[in-house]
């Protein structure tokens, strides 16, 4: 249970929601990718477009190689998703205020219906985690029955990206509010974290030192990607090994 007095004033530096990803146990099984697509109405684009770098994955698992056969090693799988930067490079460049910082949640929001599709934010994102709706990809009937009614379905010409499942955050907050309490750590989580069979992804309040994600995040060898750019990312990675 998060008690209000334990929560520091949320600021860009500390962030509010955060994630810890343990690359040592990520098996690269793609369950998070599928879970994210199902939860957030992410479209599939087909063979040609996906081969041309137009797949819409909000989360992708990167892996590289080290060494040469037979001493070759696959580097630890690295799930790459929006880092929900405290000081995001995507935000200032959007001319239409379609990508903005949420003051209350300390997240980077993408306002689909304000987006005119300049794609500047995606260019400026050092993590390259934004997906653009290059076309109106066909999802023949009855596939649309699966759509999550809590999440907007995006049309062509609109940028999208990981939201930290903000619809789940709001649902949990609303529920807690109606029951007159605070949101409990672990009460809900993002689709990717919930699916992950290895529990490599942990999500929660990083401004609450009691939460699991804070405690995991304070281990010694965590890495924040491209921190040197001053983006203040809210995801900590453990390479392990």
């Amino acid at each position: 249970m998060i008690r209000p007095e334990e929560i520091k004033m949320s600021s860009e530096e500390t962030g509010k929601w955060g994630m810890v990803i343990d690359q040592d146990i990520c098996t690269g099984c793609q369950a998070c990718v599928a879970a994210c697509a199902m939860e957030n109405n992410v479209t599939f684009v087909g063979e040609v477009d996906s081969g041309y770098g137009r797949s819409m994955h909000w989360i992708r698992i990167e892996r590289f190689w080290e060494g040469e056969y037979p001493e070759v090693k696959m580097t630890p799988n690295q799930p790459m998703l929006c880092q929900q930067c405290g000081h995001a490079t995507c935000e200032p460049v959007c001319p239409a205020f379609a990508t903005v910082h949420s003051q209350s949640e300390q997240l980077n929001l993408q306002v689909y219906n304000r987006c005119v599709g300049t794609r500047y934010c995606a260019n400026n994102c050092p993590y390259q985690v934004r997906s653009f709706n290059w076309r109106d990809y066909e999802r023949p009937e009855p596939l649309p029955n699966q759509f999550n009614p809590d999440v907007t379905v995006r049309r062509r010409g609109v940028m999208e990206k990981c939201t930290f499942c903000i619809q789940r955050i709001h649902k949990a907050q609303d529920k807690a509010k109606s029951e007159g309490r605070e949101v409990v750590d672990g009460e809900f989580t993002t689709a990717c974290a919930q699916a992950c069979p290895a529990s490599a992804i942990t999500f929660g309040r990083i401004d609450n030192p009691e939460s699991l994600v804070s405690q995991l995040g304070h281990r010694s060898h965590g890495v924040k990607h491209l921190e040197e750019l001053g983006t203040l990312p809210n995801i900590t990675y453990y390479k392990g090994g």
Partner: protein
Amino acid sequence: MSNKFSRRDFLKLTGVGAATTAILTGCGPASRYVKREPYMQMPEYNYNGLSTFYATTCRECAAGCGLIVRTSQGRAIKTEGNANNPLNLGKTCARGQATLHGLYNPDRVTDPMKGDSKITWDEATQVVADALKNNKPEEIAFLMGTAPDHLFDFVSDLANAAGINVPVRFNALSMFESRATLSKAAENLFGKTGLPFFDVGGAQIVLSFGANFLETWLSPVSYTRGFAGLREAQTKMRGKFVQFEATMSSTAGKADEWIPLKPGTEAMVALAIGKLAAEMKGVSASAFEGANPEDAAKKSGIKLEALEHIAEMFAHSGGALAIPGGAALGQSNGLAVAEAVLALNALADNFGKVGGVYISALAPMQTEYHGPASAQEMQDFIKNMADGKFKVLFVHGVNPVFELPAALGFKAALKGVGQVISFSTFPDETAAEANYVFPDHHGLESWGYQRVATGAAQPVLSGAQPVVSPFYNTRATIDLLLAAGQIAGGKFALTFKDEVEFLQSKVAPLMNEADGFFSAPDINTFMASFQQYGGWWKTTDGRTVPAAADVLNKSMSGAESKFAGEGEFFFVPFVSPTLAEAGANKPWLQELPDPTTTVMWNTWVAMNPKTAEEMGIEDDDVVRIVSEFGELEVPVYKYPAIRPDTIAIPFGQGHTAYGRYAENRGVNPTDLLGQNFNEAGDLAFAGVKVKIEKTGKKKPLSRLESIMGVYGVGMGEEH
């Protein structure tokens, strides 16, 4: 209070009270479902954003993970793992997530079909009734999927009652898992049949011989949890993991050490490690006596020091575990490999201990282990078909035309069967060959239960219930068989009113079992809880300890395996971790990149870059691969982590039917396999040698990764 209302309010996860039972009993079949309404027309007791959650079982593979499905206005929106289910503890794999793309697939079989024309369910029932009545019982055969589920029980009961052939279970996954070999080895060594369970999570060092337990092997979600436990470094030492495999699977990609041994030398290497470790431990073990580490090192291509190092780790670790599986067993000497590797566990003395080997708990209502058919048994089955011994064949939950190697001749043998009736939900290859297709509901529209064969400590029965009303004019196969049985009369007329009554009769004995997760005074209350929690399981460990007594004194053979065919390359087919055998028609599974190559929407052949270079083959060049049993053409992926004398092709694509997303995409590597079995009857799928020919064609593979960024292609000379 309407029936609709009762289901809606009482079956959701929260709040099943005693009062509900009475109302529930009164529900007819029609009231099982919440009606699908447009989101614009919300009934007054619901409002936008409020969801109903149902517990059910995932039918994408035979593991039997529990699901909680979020529904809204009668639509299934999202699947999550059932946190109560001891098998998956709230987790799912990618296929479990994408099961909704099966439910709402645009290419489902919508009506009962006779050839290409729709017929009514009355006509269909008559067809089944006639098939049962007009043929001798021994001329009626059932072929079903691997999952030991309620339908299997029903057909077994029907077989018992009417004297028809006992149903045969088969699936490509069980073939590539080499389940028969594993259980046979357990039987040989422990005198007791059953699926071994490997407690990866509790181990300190894991040697895996080809077992791709992080992908599709046996129960991937449960084993992945075990792997996370192995790596857990907070409360114990971080466990070490060594994988012996000719090509780096995504499981091997997670290993601390990947040992690319020569295919066919697994038994030799396992025994050599055993010998070295036994010497270090000062244990005398006659099982390993015949081994010669120097020779094994030379033949397998592993450095002797590496073998010694591994043996040392294995000998001195407090929690050593060795796992046999996958391609290591799919060879002519697969049984010997399985026995040799299991013997390593006897050396580590880990039977029945944390981080060791168990025999999986038998599921509730199960008295002995009953495995799916091996490929050799399938060949006998096919022979019976071809010889005209079966006049009618019912196929459910399996697509043998696609899943069995074409060389085994299932498709041709279908011509020998008078009448083929498929219950397939999707227009798959077998349904295309069938005389009739009487589509069953999709798993999420169905009642049922599924016994969990392995993966959980306790005996688990995962329960299934429809989470949405059937989308199309489909019918539960049990309901169809019951109705047809009534018409056929005689021994076929079982007394159940419908599928649900059959289920209740089956689970009723569990009410009186001890150590149940819940209990109830009467069947209605019990069923309500069964549906609410998504099954029933015991609270006690049901695994048994293998008899370790004389394992180390058995004689073991470390001879190299034999390979079919003349080619210069070892051929390793493996199951695509994202598609598996039945995922190709789900568009989001197609769009998931393979964990090792990141290829989407197609099949590739993995070749060592040096070999490819020597042969003048580039990425995306289409090559023809020829084996003794067949040939296929497939684009090349220069894969840096595969032996130069080995190629690997994923299984999962190459459908000729099965809907728009699956059809005419990629190739099926079983085309290269044929009548080549090991001693346990499993297909020696990794025991084939192949030739590679250039075709001069090119087919660009869709990759998520950048060839430039990952392999430096096109970055200029220095990079």
